[in-house]
């Protein structure tokens, strides 16, 4: 359990950076080499490699078989694990807010009818 929680912390830390999130988004549409990944960013390859290392340590990406290109690919299962927390948080609040929608409809009706009596 402790290890699991540390893994999740590593995933959250890795995803806290906008460049790393962009890399993850790019890899979601297929594997890519470091050079291909560096292209859209105004960043050197070593800088990108540093970000890739963080993502790799969090288990979010891995390296493909091709020895020359060493393409990085997304470990979708690990990513799903992390977004599950945010999704759960979202679900809890959406439940609250849907109850609030219904309550507000009631309050609006009450206000209208008390306004009509006046």
């Amino acid at each position, binding site marked *: 359990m402790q290890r699991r929680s540390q893994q*999740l*912390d590593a995933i*959250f*830390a890795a995803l*806290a950076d906008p460049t790393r999130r962009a890399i993850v988004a790019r890899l979601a549409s297929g594997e890519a080499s470091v050079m291909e990944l560096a292209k859209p960013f105004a960043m050197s390859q070593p800088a990108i490699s540093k970000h890739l290392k963080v993502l790799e340590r969090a288990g979010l990406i891995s390296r493909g078989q091709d020895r020359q290109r060493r393409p990085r690919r997304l470990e979708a299962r690990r990513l799903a694990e992390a977004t599950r*927390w*945010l999704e*759960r*948080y*979202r*679900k*809890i*609040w*959406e*439940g*609250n*807010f*849907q*109850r*609030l*929608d*219904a*309550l*507000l*409809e009631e*309050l*609006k009706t009450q*206000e209208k009818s008390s306004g009509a009596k006046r």
Partner: protein
Amino acid sequence: MNEAGSAKVTANQGEATVKNASTFRVTTPTDQEIRMTRVFDAPRHLVMDAFSKPELLKRWLLGPPGWEMVVCNVANKPGERYRYEWRNTATGHQFGTGGVCRETSPGRIVHTEVMDGQPGESVVTTDFVEEGGKTTVTMTLLFESKEIRDMALKSGMERGVAASYNRLEELLASGQA
């Protein structure tokens, strides 16, 4: 005649709910924040009532299914303390949160929050902006550190249903092994 009329109302409300649900956004704008934005189909004063009157809060601020709000002491003036507690109707498990009201003005509520069993105090700023009869609510939760923020994101787990899901998962896993 009556039946047809009420059915129509229900359908309309259903549509409105779905439409509003699609306006819901949860983001993490910085390392220490969680921000939620949601549009409600009601004027600001009614939405603010629902956020500040105990008899109204008790009807919607319940969290996951199976929980009821058993304590709802509100604070509507700066410096006052509030305390909310929920109880799981099936397990009897209780959970609470509380803090101090920092600011109330038309359109804004600011309060601090300390959740039972979790470290650190967060500052919750809730803004209410009305436009064309609809109110956009933006809740920004500012935590002392990223670590505490992440714990709060995961706290859905500690709050009951999730905890029992966990137990169920464990049971299923051990059964399969």
